[in-house]
């Protein structure tokens, strides 16, 4: 899994590994170190009265974990639960929570230096949830700012 990338001159770049996943049709990434686990336990218990982006609660080996619908949180509609959908359980500063995504994809390595600030015209709800944008060879991928996504609605 570890893909060490060395620069031509042998100087080690600051590399991070990113997990790619789909939210609806959109591709997002997050730092792999923020992820505790990825699972497909879909036995969610709905919580009436919870904010609408809360899908429900999940029993994760005896721990109760709140699962958020990432698409809803990002304002991209609902996530339909199917065979490809996964829960990404993340470590936040106060316990675990998870996000439901439509599909997970590869882990890619990238250099921090290639991350750029989100374009200023990417405004609104979506803009505030991204920490930056990565350029890959043929596409741009948004890096989720996990603290913002997991944060409480002001």
């Amino acid at each position, binding site marked *: 899994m570890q893909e060490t990338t060395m620069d031509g001159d042998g100087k080690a770049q600051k590399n991070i590994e990113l997990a790619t996943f789909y939210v609806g049709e959109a591709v997002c990434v997050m730092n792999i170190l923020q992820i505790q686990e990825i699972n497909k336990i879909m036995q969610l218990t709905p*919580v009436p009265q*919870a904010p609408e982006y809360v899908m429900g609660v999940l*029993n994760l080996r005896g*721990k*109760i974990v*709140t699962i958020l619908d990432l698409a809803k949180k990002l304002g991209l509609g609902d996530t339909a639960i199917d065979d490809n959908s996964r829960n990404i359980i993340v470590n936040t500063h106060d*316990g675990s929570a998870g996000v439901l995504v439509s599909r997970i994809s590869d882990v890619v390595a990238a250099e921090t230096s290639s991350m750029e600030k989100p374009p200023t015209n990417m405004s609104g709800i979506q803009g505030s949830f991204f920490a930056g944008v990565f350029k890959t060879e043929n596409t741009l991928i948004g890096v989720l700012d996990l603290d913002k996504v997991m944060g409480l609605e002001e």
Partner: protein
Amino acid sequence: MGQDESDVREGTTSIRVNVSLLDSLMNLAGELVLSRNQLLQAIGSEGLKNAEAVGQRIDLITSELQEAIMQTRMQPIGNLFEKIPRIVRDLASKHRKKVELSVNGKDVELDKTIIESITVPLTSLVQHVFVLGVETPEERSKAGKDEIAVLSLSAFHEAGQVVIELYNDGRGLDGDKLAQEAVRRNILTTDQAQSMSEKDKLELFFQLDSGGSDEKGERAAANRPSVKSDIDKLGGQLEIQSEAGRGTTIAIKLPLTLAIIPCQIIIAERERYAIPQVNLEELLRIPAHLIKKRIETVGNAQVVRLRGKLLPLVRLADVLGIKRTYFDKEEEHYKKDRRSRIADRRSKTLALEPQAGAEHVATEQEDTSSVVNRTGEDRRKAPESALNIVVVSAGAMTYGLIVDRLEDSEEIVIKPLGRHLQGCRGYAGATIMGDGRIALILDVSNLGSMAELTPVEADVIALQNQNRDSQSADRETRSVLLFRCSEEESFAIPLEKVDRIEKIQRNDIEYLGSRKVMQYRNGSLTLLSIDDIASVKPLSDKEDLLVIVFQVGAKLVGLLACGPVDTREVAMDFDNVTLRQTGIAGSTVIEGRTTLHVDIEEMTQQLV
């Protein structure tokens, strides 16, 4: 007081644990790892027999581990009692009273969180009792008592609970004065105060809190939740007994731990929820054909008439806003309709709803007719359209929560909800059920306020009812549970003594020598039948039996009975001569039937 609070906060950071306890925990953890390895092996080699043995072992280790971990949280109550002598000494010199304090039961252990949360209410109770209850030396000698008053604080185990008892031999409390004080502080209206029983008035003591007689204390008290709400939050109970001139006894009954609590599991909209047993008063089922008769509308509130009192009703699904908050105004008669709507809730029936709601506001009469038009008579007789009501109470609030179905009572482990759900006030936490799914634990007191019920409103309704219905104003009655043993004879027992009623099959009864037991909440419950002790006709030979569970002293006892069960409000006094025998306290005629009053304490004594 501020000092105490900061002490509590510091205390939460660390805990002192006996090394031997820690050793046994380490031991168990080691065992667990070992068993896990065995289990993995057994699974790998497909040795099903082995797996079974390992499974048993893990089961054992898990329960021991749980017990040991629970023990680490237990702290002697002495830590808390140490603070009391100083408080009493300060009070004594301030109020120029002489008092001798005796403290007992320092070794009794309680969950750390409970000890921490009980500190403030207990000190404020001590202060309050001291100020109101204990007389000055002059008054005491005038009354012919020793100049030095006795104040005792003791802790002991009783019936699986810890009881903290606070006693003084002072002048006793005056219920009327407490009521006046409550009226002055706008806690009660004058009308309410007048209609209260002596016992209720004494209980005001807990709501008035430690204000005492001086104004400063009163102001301080206003900013603090009352002792009663503090204890309620812990799942504890408060009892008070007072005799003029003789003294006052206050008992605080607390659960041993907060981590595991007995709960009633209910189902609403196909999801399970748990209601803590401490909040549970009784379960009520209104058969479909009686709904029209029993459910009434007072103003815009739905109520059910329960033993002469009106009980406000709240539908759980509505309070939680499950799916169809739209149906908020729906009449309680429509259970069956609602069910069908769950199946096809996007269908046209929806469109009818606002009309029905509007009619409902008009009068009850009109409303009923609209129901008939829409659903047809036969539908409302369907057994599944009966209403299941869980009567719950929290603090001064009692209301009926309408749920879809009632399940078992279970001991559950409380787990906290995540940060995103902190805004949901209706839940006290969540728990994981046997099948691995999650059930939310309901916070009865918050649900009540979310439904905009207030204790006052409930009381006002009760009052309106009393004024209108002179019969219920007569308070020399008590509620009894009526049941049968054989088909012919009918028996009664005071309702407040009944813990639960369980439905069982005849073959659930196990015979051990001359004793009968059944499995109940992971243990054995001693069963007795009235005909074991009293000379009455033998227990009916039906297959479906009932077990009425009582708490007698420290243990639970089950009384075998058969239906139909019912509750009635009957006169307090009964004939205790004619039919008196062992286990039978006497008889009354209830609705043309001679009904025998069972004395459960006496029966239990006969058993041993």
